[in-house]
C-alpha cells in the first residue's frame, strides 16, 4: 500500500504547469487570508476573554475606512485570479489549427476512440508526445465527461452536441482517464488509459496493426471488428464475461458445474454460445457459426490466450448484467 500520501498528480501536458502555477498563486493568497482570519479569531478569543461575568465589551460600531479597504483590496485580488484563470481557459477552448484529431464516443459505460487513420480503440488512447491533440467528442446516450487528471483537462460529452478539447502531451507514459460526469450504474469503471508515446513509437504502433501480424494482434483486431468488445468488457461488467485471465482457468457455469477454459471451450462458446453459460450472465450472445472462419477462431483463441496473465476482474458474476434502458 502507499506509504506516503501523494499531493500532486503528474504533470504531463502543456496545461499542467500552467494550472499548477495558478494553483500555487491562489493557494498563497487564500492561505494568507485563511491564516490571518483564524489567527485573529484565536488571538482575540484569548486576549479578550471575559474577565468578569457581567462585563461588557467596548462598543465599536464600525469603521468606514476599514470596510472600504476590505471591499476594494480583495476586489483587485479577485480580479487577478479571474484574469489569470480566464487566460488559461480561453486558451483551452481555442484549439490550435494543426491538430491530431481523435474522435471520441462516450456510451454507457465505455469509451470508443478512433485515430485519424480509422483505427479504433476501446477505453484506450494512444497519442504521440509533443503534438497538439484534439478530441472531438459525442455521446450516444447520456452526458459523460472525458477527464485526464495528469493533463489537467476535462470536457463534458453531451448528446446532441459535439464538444472538443485539446492538449499537448509533454511526457511519455501511461495516465488514467476517467468519466467525470455521473452517467449511471457503472460510471466509476468507465475509464481507461492514455498512453503517450514517442512519435516514432506511435507511428510504429499505428502501422503495426494495419498490416498482417501475428495471430494475437489479428485476434485483437477481430475482437474489435466483430464487436465482441461491446459485451465482453475487460472488467467483466458488460453483458458477457471478461477475457482477462480466463484461459486455462476453471469457469463456474450457471448450472453450477465447472469447466476448464481450454481451446475447445472457447471454440464452442463462439459457435454455440448458449451451450455453457457462465454463472452470473444471461444467454444473450448470438451464434457466430458461418460468420467466422476456422482461421479467425484460431486468432481469437490466440488473443484470449494472450490475456491469461492479465488479472481477472475482481468478482466475476457478482455484478448484475448491464440493463441500460434503450
Amino acid at each position, binding site marked *: *500500500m*502507499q506509504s506516503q500520501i501523494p499531493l*500532486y498528480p503528474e504533470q504531463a501536458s502543456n*496545461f499542467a504547469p*500552467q*494550472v499548477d502555477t495558478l*494553483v500555487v498563486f*491562489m493557494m498563497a493568497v*487564500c492561505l494568507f487570508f485563511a491564516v490571518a*482570519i*483564524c489567527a485573529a*479569531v484565536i488571538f482575540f*478569543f484569548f486576549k*479578550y*476573554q*471575559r*474577565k*468578569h461575568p*457581567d*462585563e*461588557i465589551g*467596548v*462598543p*465599536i460600531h*464600525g*469603521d468606514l475606512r*476599514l*470596510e472600504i479597504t476590505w*471591499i476594494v483590496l480583495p*476586489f483587485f485580488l*479577485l480580479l487577478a485570479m*479571474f484574469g489569470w*484563470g*480566464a487566460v*488559461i*481557459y*480561453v486558451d*483551452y477552448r481555442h484549439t490550435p489549427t494543426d491538430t491530431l484529431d481523435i474522435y471520441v464516443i462516450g456510451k*454507457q459505460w465505455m469509451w470508443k476512440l478512433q485515430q485519424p487513420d480509422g483505427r479504433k480503440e476501446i477505453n484506450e488512447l494512444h497519442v504521440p508526445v509533443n503534438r497538439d491533440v484534439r478530441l472531438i467528442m459525442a455521446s450516444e*446516450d*447520456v*452526458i459523460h*465527461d472525458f477527464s485526464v*487528471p495528469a493533463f489537467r483537462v*476535462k*470536457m463534458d460529452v*453531451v*448528446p*446532441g452536441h459535439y464538444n472538443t478539447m485539446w492538449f499537448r502531451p509533454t511526457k511519455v507514459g501511461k495516465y488514467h482517464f*476517467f468519466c*467525470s*460526469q*455521473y*452517467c449511471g*450504474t*457503472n460510471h*466509476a469503471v468507465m475509464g481507461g488509459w492514455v498512453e503517450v508515446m514517442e512519435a516514432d513509437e506511435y507511428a510504429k504502433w499505428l502501422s503495426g496493426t494495419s498490416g498482417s501480424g501475428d495471430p494475437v494482434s489479428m485476434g485483437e483486431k477481430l475482437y474489435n471488428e466483430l464487436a465482441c468488445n461491446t459485451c465482453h468488457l475487460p472488467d467483466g461488467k458488460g453483458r458477457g464475461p471478461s477475457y482477462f485471465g480466463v484461459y486455462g482457468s476453471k469457469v463456474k457455469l450457471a448450472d453450477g458445474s465447472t469447466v476448464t477454459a481450454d481451446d475447445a471451450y472457447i471454440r464452442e462458446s463462439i459457435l454455440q454460445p448458449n451451450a455453457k453459460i457462465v454463472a452470473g450472465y444471461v444467454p444473450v450472445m448470438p451464434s457466430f457459426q458461418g460468420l467466422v472462419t476456422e482461421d479467425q477462431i484460431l486468432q481469437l483463441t490466440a488473443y484470449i490466450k494472450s490475456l491469461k496473465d492479465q488479472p481477472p476482474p475482481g468478482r466475476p458474476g457478482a*455484478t*448484475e448484467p448491464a440493463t441500460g*434502458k434503450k
Partner: protein
Amino acid sequence: MSSAPITPSGGEKLPREHYLNATYGIRSWLLTTDHKRIALLYLISVTFFFFIGGIFASLIRIHLLTPGGYLVTPETYNKLFTMHGVAMIFFFLIPSIPAVLGNFLIPIMIGAKDLAFPKINLLSWYIYLVGGGFVLYSFATGGLDTGWTFYTPLSSIYSNSAVTPAVIGIFINGFSSILTGLNFIVTVHTMRAPGMTWMRLPLFVWAHYATSIIFILGTPVIAITLLLAGLERMFHLGFFNPAYGGDPILFQHMFWFYSHPAVYIMILPAMGVISEIIPTFARKPIFGYDFIAASSIGIAVIGFIVWAHHMFLTGQSTYSAVAFSFLTFLVAIPSAVKVFNWTSTLYKGSISFDTPMLYGLGFIGLFTIGGLTGLFLACLGLDIHLHDTYFVVAHFHYIMVGGAIMGYLGGIHFWWPKITGRLYPESLARIAAIVLFVGFNLTFFPQFILGFLGMPRRYHDYPPEYQVLNVMSTAGASILALGYLLPMVYLTWSMRYGKVAGKNPWPATGLEWTTDSPPLTENFHETPVVDWEVYDFEHRPELGLLGAVSKKPAPAHGDD
C-alpha cells in the same frame, strides 16, 4: 416596555402559561397556526430527514473505505449518494434554519404576534410532508440513481429507478419553500412592532429576508424545470431530449438558476445565526451592521447571476463562461465582508466560552475555508481540472455542513432556552461542538487533496492510490456521526430535566429575550415598543451588566 431585570437562572420555575401548555392533544398540534408550534413540527420532520440522509452518508463512507467497493453494488452506491443528496438538500438543509429557527423567531424578533399568514404557514408544513412522502415512497420503491442534480437525459430517459415520484415530491416541496418565503417577506414588511425600524432589525431577520427573496424568485423555476423533466420522462416528450432536438444543457441552465441560489438559501440563514451569536457572546455591538445587512441582500441578488459556473465544461460559450466566472468572483466580496466584520466584532469584546460561541467561531473558520476554495472553482483555468472531482464535494460540504449545519446547531443551542425554557448541560455541549469541529475537518479536508489528485466524484470504485485519504475521511465521518448524536441525546434529555433558563440567560439584546421562555402563544403580554438600537449593551441597564448607562432618548429613524 416589559423587560424586567435579569435574574440569575436556576431554581426558577417555567412561566405558568406558555405556547407549549396552552392547549393539549394531537389536534392542537396538527391544526395549530402558532408559528412556534409549526417550527417545532418542522424541527421534528427535518431531523427525521437528517437521520435518513445521515444513514446514507455513513453507508457511502463505509463503502469507500477500500478501493473496489465491496460493501454495495454500483447501482446501490449510486442510489445512496443520490438519496443522501435529495434528503439532505431539499428536505433538511433548505428548510432547516428558515422553517425551524426562522419560523420560531422572526415574529418574536420583530415584535409581532405571529407571521402574516399563519394558516399558509401551517399549509406549507403539510405541503412539505406530502412532498417528503413522495420522496420517501421513491426511496422505498427502489430509490433513485440520477444524482440529486437530475441531469437529463439520464434522469428523463435512461435511469431505471423511481425518478418520477421523487421529482413529483421535490416539485411539491418547492411550494412549501415558496409559501414560507412569501410569509417571511410580507411579515417583515407589514408586521413590525412600533419602533422596530429596518435599521433595528436583527441581522438574523435581514438574512431571512434575503433568503426569502431567493425562495420567491428561484423556487418556481426549479418547480417548472422538474415538471418539464418529469413530463419528459412520463410522456416521452422532448424538452431536454437530444433525440427530439431538445437540449440537455438547457435543463442545466434552468436547474442551476435555482440550485445555485439554493446554496445561498442554505448558508444565508446560518450567517444570520452567527451574526446574532457573535455580538451576544462578545457583548458588544456588531461591527459594521449596515454592511452585514447589505451584504445579505447583495449575496441574494448577485447569487442569482452566477449559476452557469456549474457548466463551464459543458460546451457553454467561452464568452459566457468568462462572464459567469467574473460574476462568481464578485459574489465572494459580500461573503468576505461578513467574515471580516465578524472577526472585527471580537476586537475588544468580552468574549465568553459558551457553546453557541464555539459553533460561531467554528463557523467562521470552516466558512472561510469553504468560501476560499470556492474561488478555485470559480477560476476558469482551475475548474477545468477540479470540476466534478472530490474537490467540489469537499468545497460544498465545507459550506453546507461546516457552514449551514454548524450555524443551525449553533442557533439551536443559542435559542434552546427560549424554545424550551430550559438549559442543556453546558460542558457536554462544548465537548460535542469540539468533536464536531474535529470530525468535520478530518472527514472533508482529505477530500480536497483527493479532488486535486483527480479522483472524480460519484465513484463507487477508485484506483488504490487514493485509499489512504479515503480511509482518513471515513475515520473522520465516524467522529462526525458521534458529534451529531451527542446533541440529539442531551437536548432531548434537557427538555425535561434541564435547568430552567429564565427570560434571558446569556444575556442578549434582541426582542425575543424580553419575553418569557418559553413565550406565550401571542409571544408578548402586550405589544412591545422598541426604543433601543440593535445589539446595544451599553444603554440597556435592564440587562444587569456592568458599565451600562441608562438609555439615551433615541428617536426612531430610518422608517421605511
